[in-house]
């Protein structure tokens, strides 16, 4: 494991009582790497994400972000340390404007969340950074719209902007294209590619859609029944028989 690892997971496990949802997962992700976590439904992808992002502490193992131990920290502390995530079900501030959605992370990042006076719209440190973030995801012309009134694909983009606003070193995206139509999916893929190229941010995504995974990821981790079944480059994963079996199981034996 190299010193350049941004995110390192050691023997991570999580169980509910006796039921082990995920077990003994170790992996390390290098800076700027685009990796994906795949696996059939119920493989434990979301549990894995929740356990490393602070939704709940893992019952076993360690999470290291930029060399610092962040195991079991609550979500807001994980964000402070530089890892931010999206959710499978769009997680945004529905009745606020697009701009206000992006202000929230910036206010907290700049430690202004206990500032009891002053107009945010006149705070250049915040508005400029917000505008920049909105330009990145292509929403700058919608800054004043209420998020609830946006199309589904745009709502996902708002969440993306919320996640990116604080310039996290690691971005976790939980099924970024879930529920999108083919055109929106295309847009999201090219957006993620563009962001990864321009910002050097490390993306770690889970995805259902194999097309998305193979067109994005440089490295793929396969989760099966809570265990890491395989890891490697896309072509290696494609050729891996165990993976094929895990996914297509019955068909292979039929």
């Amino acid at each position, binding site marked *: 494991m190299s010193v350049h690892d941004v995110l390192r997971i050691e023997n991570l496990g999580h169980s509910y009582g006796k039921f082990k949802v995920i077990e003994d997962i170790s992996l390390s992700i290098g800076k700027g790497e685009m990796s994906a976590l795949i696996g059939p439904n119920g493989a434990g992808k979301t549990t894995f994400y929740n356990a490393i992002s602070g939704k709940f502490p893992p019952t076993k193992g360690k999470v290291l972000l930029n060399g610092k131990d962040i195991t079991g920290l609550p979500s807001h502390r994980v964000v402070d340390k530089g890892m931010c995530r999206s959710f499978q079900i769009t997680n945004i501030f529905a009745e606020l404007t697009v701009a206000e959605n992006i202000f929230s992370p910036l206010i*907290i990042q700049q430690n202004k969340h206990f500032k009891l006076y002053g107009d945010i719209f006149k705070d250049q440190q915040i508005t400029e950074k917000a505008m920049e973030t909105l330009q990145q995801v292509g929403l700058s012309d919608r800054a*004043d719209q209420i998020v609830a009134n946006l199309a589904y694909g745009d709502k996902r983009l708002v969440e993306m902007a919320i996640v990116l606003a604080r310039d996290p070193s690691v971005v976790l995206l939980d099924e970024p294209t879930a529920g999108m139509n083919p055109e929106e999916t295309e847009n999201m893929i090219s957006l993620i590619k563009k962001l990864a190229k321009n910002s050097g941010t490390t993306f770690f995504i889970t995805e259902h859609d194999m097309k998305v995974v193979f067109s994005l990821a440089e490295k793929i981790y396969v989760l099966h029944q809570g265990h890491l079944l395989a890891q490697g480059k896309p072509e290696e994963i494609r050729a891996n028989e165990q993976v094929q079996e895990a996914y297509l199981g019955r068909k292979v034996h039929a």
Partner: protein
Amino acid sequence: MMQGQQRRNLLGPALLTVLLLIAPLMIPIYWTMILSEILIMGLMAISFNLLLGYTGLLSFGQGAFFGLGAYSAALMLQGGYENLFLILFVGMLVAMLAALAVGIFSVQLDEIFFAMITLGFGMLFFSVAHNWRTVTGGSDGLPVFSLPSLNFFGSQLTFYAPVNMYYLIFVLVFIGCSLLWLIVHSPFGLILKALRENKQRVSFVGGNVKILRIAAFAISGAFTGLAGVLFCLFNNMATPEFMHWSFSAKPVIMSVIGGTSVFLGPLFGAAIFFVLEQIIIQFTENWMLFLGIVLVFIVLFFPEGVFGTLRNKFFKQGSK
């Protein structure tokens, strides 16, 4: 380019301020006193709405902080401390510290559970005020015999005349509401709205939900305490009824009547509440029956409160 979600139109509030300033010159003393009560309860309701409308927390224990403000003022006046500013400061501080303590235990809960735990704390404070006779006077309450006066450019202002009392209340409610207005439009205020919309998201952009909510609860408690101090001065009395859960329901009803999505909505709710009461008690003693009917009517036909629904109907508005 980005702009505030609502153009901060201050024309309405400015007009209202002028009207309130000249009102005592044009209405009978009796109605000036009703108006005093409206302002005090309006401040309480706006403070309460910092929690309901902005943070998304339904507190059913605001009476406790109102009562603590009132008792602080009564105890100080009985003890001979007649400095107005000191009384205001201590009343707000006591209420804020109590809110801080209640908040620490309550804010991890949501919705009905939050309402219930704050209700529980409210009942606890009520019982103390009701039973601790030696300090609070028990169910008789604490009477106040002398009011603070104010040295105003050399002349001594007293507040025994209802009109003088009205202006004292007006000035302090104005200051209180202005401070709350600043707060809801501040960065902290935006984070509160974000909490109302989605507390999980706040936590996942780095916000400590618990601390933020405690801060909101304490601020709300402090201004509710201010309203309590004013009511004690106005009423010449602090009674345990202020802490009863039925009193805590008042800001809830007023906010729902007026509209929780508009800053001044709860104040309008308070006005509607008192004016209706005045009109109805001329005809019947069962004014609660009619209040109930009005409440049902408003919830059905003005889902965002009278003020909120009318505003949405006549002005295209941005976010709440």
